[in-house]
C-alpha cells in the first residue's frame, strides 16, 4: 500500500500463464524482495520469513507471491468435490473453548445418531452422485471403536463407491486411550472396516502456550503429529488444518505451519492444508471478534508460501463464507472443498454460510475468477461424469 506504485516490471515473477495474459508485473515491495526471489527460485522460507509475511502492510503483494506459487503448482485448475459431512453425535467429553458443537449428554441439544441414520444420510448423498463421506464427531463413550467399525462396514457394504474420509487424530487418540491400543492398532482396525483416509481436524494451534488455553484436554501436538505419521506410514493419505483468528499470534501460526512442513518432509502423506477461520459465536471465546477478511486471506497466502511441500490449499467455504472463499482463489487456494450438505460443527458457532452449495454454484464461483473447475475425488483424481443427455 505504498503511495507511489512501482513501475511495471521488465520480467515477471513467474513464467506467464499459457491461458491468460501475463499480469504479474508489479515489482514486489523492496522489503519483500529477498522473500520474492526465494519464491521464484523455489527456495524454502524460514520462520522469520513467515513472520515478515504476516506483518507486511501490503496484503496484495503477499497475495501475489502466493498466487504465483499456486499457478506454478496447479495452473488454472480449481478443484471441488461432491461430498457429505455426517457428524454422528455432538456429545463430547472434551471442552474446547473454541467449540460450539460439543454438548454434555444431558443437554437438550445433544443428539446421537443410530447406524441406520448414518446410512440414510449416506444413501441420499450417494443418490446425488457424491464420491466422499466425511465423518467426524464428539468424543462419546458409547461411540467407541466397535461402533465405528460396524458403521464403516455397514457403509462400505451399502455404498462401496463412497470414499470414507473419517476420524480426526483426536478421535484416534481417544480410541487408543479408551481401548488401550496403540494408534496403529486403532487405525488398522478402522482401515479393515473401511476407512480410506483421514481429515485434518483437531490440529487447532500446536504451540503449547495456545493449546493449553483453548483445548487443554485434547491430544497434544506431538500425539496429533504421531498419529498422522503412523497413518501415512500405513499408506493412508490425510489432510491438515490450522484454526486461526482466536488467541494465537503470528508466531504460533508460523510454528504450526513449520511443524506440518517437517512431518510432510518425512512422510509426504498430507494432501491439503485447510486453514480454519475461528467462529466465536456460542463458544467460550465469544468475546473475541473472530478473524477479519484480511486475516483470512493473509493466512491463506502465507500458508501457501510456507507449506511448500503440501500440494493443495483449500478455501473451506463453510468457514470463510462463499465470498471470501472465492477471493481466496487469488491468494493461493486451489480447492473450494465440497458441496458438504448438513454441516453442524461450524453452524453451531454461528456461521451464516449456507450448509450446502449446489455444484452449479461452486462451479460458478470458480469460473467467475477465470479458472477451470475440476471435480476431484478424495485423492485428487479427476472425476469424469457422463453429461446428462450424452446418450449410451
Amino acid at each position, binding site marked *: *500500500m*505504498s*503511495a*507511489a*506504485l512501482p*513501475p*511495471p516490471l521488465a520480467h515477471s515473477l513467474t513464467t506467464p500463464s*499459457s*491461458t*491468460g*495474459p501475463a*499480469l*504479474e*508485473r*508489479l515489482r514486489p515491495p523492496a522489503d519483500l524482495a529477498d522473500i520474492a526471489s526465494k519464491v521464484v527460485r523455489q527456495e524454502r522460507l524460514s520462520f522469520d520469513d513467515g513472520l515478515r509475511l504476516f506483518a507486511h*502492510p*501490503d*496484503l*496484495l*503483494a503477499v*497475495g*501475489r507471491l502466493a*498466487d504465483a506459487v499456486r499457478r506454478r503448482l496447479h495452473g488454472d485448475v480449481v478443484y471441488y468435490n461432491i461430498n457429505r459431512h455426517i457428524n454422528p453425535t455432538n456429545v463430547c467429553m472434551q471442552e474446547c473453548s473454541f467449540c460450539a458443537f460439543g454438548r454434555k449428554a444431558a443437554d437438550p441439544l445433544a443428539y446421537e445418531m443410530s447406524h441406520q441414520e448414518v446410512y440414510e444420510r449416506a444413501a441420499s448423498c450417494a443418490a446425488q452422485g457424491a464420491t466422499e463421506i466425511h465423518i467426524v464427531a464428539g468424543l462419546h463413550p458409547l461411540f467407541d471403536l466397535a461402533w465405528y467399525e460396524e458403521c464403516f462396514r455397514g457403509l462400505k457394504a451399502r455404498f462401496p463407491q463412497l470414499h470414507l474420509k473419517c476420524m480426526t487424530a483426536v478421535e484416534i487418540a481417544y480410541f487408543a486411550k479408551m481401548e488401550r491400543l496403540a494408534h496403529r492398532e486403532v487405525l488398522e482396525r478402522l482401515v479393515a472396516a473401511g476407512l480410506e483416509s483421514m481429515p485434518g481436524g483437531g490440529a487447532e494451534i500446536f504451540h503449547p502456550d495456545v493449546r493449553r488455553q483453548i483445548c487443554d484436554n485434547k491430544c497434544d501436538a506431538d500425539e496429533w503429529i504421531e498419529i498422522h505419521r503412523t497413518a501415512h506410514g500405513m499408506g493412508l493419505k490425510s489432510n491438515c488444518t490450522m484454526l486461526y483468528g482466536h488467541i494465537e499470534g503470528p508466531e504460533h501460526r508460523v510454528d504450526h505451519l513449520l511443524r506440518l512442513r517437517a512431518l510432510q518432509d518425512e512422510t509426504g502423506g498430507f494432501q491439503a492444508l485447510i486453514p480454519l477461520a475461528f467462529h466465536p459465536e456460542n463458544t467460550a471465546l465469544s468475546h473475541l*471478534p473472530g478473524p*477479519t*477478511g*484480511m*486475516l*483470512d*486471506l493473509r493466512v491463506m497466502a502465507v500458508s501457501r508460501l510456507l507449506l511448500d511441500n503440501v500440494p493443495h490449499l483449500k478455501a473451506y467455504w463453510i468457514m*470463510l*463464507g*462463499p*465470498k*471470501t472463499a*472465492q*477471493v481466496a*482463489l*487469488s491468494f493461493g487456494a486451489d480447492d473450494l472443498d465440497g458441496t458438504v450438505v448438513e454441516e453442524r460443527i461450524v453452524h453451531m458457532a454461528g456461521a451464516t454460510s449456507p450448509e450446502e452449495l449446489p455444484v*452449479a*454454484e461452486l462451479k*460458478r*464461483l470458480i469460473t*467467475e*475468477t477465470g479458472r477451470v473447475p475440476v471435480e476431484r475425488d478424495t485423492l485428487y483424481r479427476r472425476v469424469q461424469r457422463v453429461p446428462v443427455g450424452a446418450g449410451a
Partner: protein
Amino acid sequence: MTAVPTAAPATTPDATLDSTLESALARAAAGERLSAQEGLALLERADLLTLGSLADAARQRHNPGRTVTYIVDRNVNYTNVCVTYCSFCAFQRKPGHTESYVQTLEQMDARLAELDGLGGRQVLLQGGHHPDLAIEWYEEMLRHFRAKFPRINIHGFSPPEITHFAEIWGLDRKEILRRFQAAGLGSLPGGGAEILVDRVRRQIANLKATTDEWLGVMEDAHALGLSSSATMMFGHVETPAERIEHLVRVRSLQDKTGGFRAFACWNFQREGTPLGKKVAASTGAYDYLRTVAVARLMLDNVRHVQASWVTQGPKIGQLSLSFGVDDFGGTMLEENVVSAAGTTYCLPIEQLEHLIRDAGYEPRRRTTGYEILPRTDVAA
C-alpha cells in the same frame, strides 16, 4: 467415440487486445486518464490483485494517508409506496397494498432523535415513488427536520425521485430542487443510477428515470450547489462494456460540474425480486472487487470511493479497502431497501472501527461533506 479434432491453443493471445491491456496497466499505474477501451481491458482481463494494487495507489493519490472515514447516519424511508415497479426491487409496495406505509413526522422524529443522540450527522431520506403526496408534504418534512435537528444533514431524494416529482407535480425539476434546498435539503444521494445505459434501464427499470434524466437531475443539483454521490448497481443484464460506459458518463458530468463527492457500487442482490428470477446467479465478491477497483481507476475526478459492506458483508467490505476504497460509508442504523432483498449485514460502530484498524487504517468520523470530525465532537 468420434475422434476429437486436435485442439487449437485454448486462447490465442490477440496482439491488439494485449497491447490495449498493456497500455491500460501502464497508464493506470501512471495515474493517467483511461479510455473506455482501456477500462474495459482492465475489467475483463487484468489480474485481480494487480487491479487492487493499482486502485490502492490511486486511492493514495486521491486521499493520501492512513485514514478511513465513515459517517454515522441512518436511512429514513418515509414511504414504500411506489409506482415504478423496478424488477430488481423487493422494497416497493403498490398503493393500497396491506404492507404499504407512509410515516408520520412523529415516527420519523423518533428515528432522527436517536440518530442525533448517537452523534449522527446525516439522514439518508429516500422513499418509494408515491403517486399522491404533494410537494408541500415534502417541504414541510424538510423544514421540520432542518429546524429540529440542525446538526443532521439531509441527504435526500435520488434523481429518479426528483424525476417522478417533476412528472406528477408538473414542475420543472430545477424548481423542485430549489424549493427542496430552500426547505433544508443539503445534498443528494446517488441512488437510482443502476446502469446508466438506456438499453439496460429499459430491461430492469422501464418506468424509472432515463440515463439523461438521471444525469440531468445531478447536473441541476450541482449547479444549485447541492453536491451528491454517484452509484452503480451491476451484475444483472448489463455487459462489461456497459459498466464502463456508466463510469465514463459519471466522469464526463463530473468534468463539467465537479459535484460528485463519492462513488459507490454493488452487485445486484437477487432474493425476492422479479429480476432475480431472470438473472441466473448473482455475481460474486471477485466481481465486486474487480469492479470497485476499475471504478477507482476510471473515476479520476471523483475523490472518494465508498465500500458497500451492506451488500458485501464485513469481510469483503474490509478487503475493499485494498481495492481503492477510502470510505466505509454510513453506519446505517436502519436499512430497509437492501435488507428487503435478503441482504442483512449490519455492523455496530465498534465492529466497523475494528475492521478499519485491523486493515491498518485509522477510523475517523466525517460529515456528508467529508470534513473529519474532531474526536472530541464524537459522542461515545
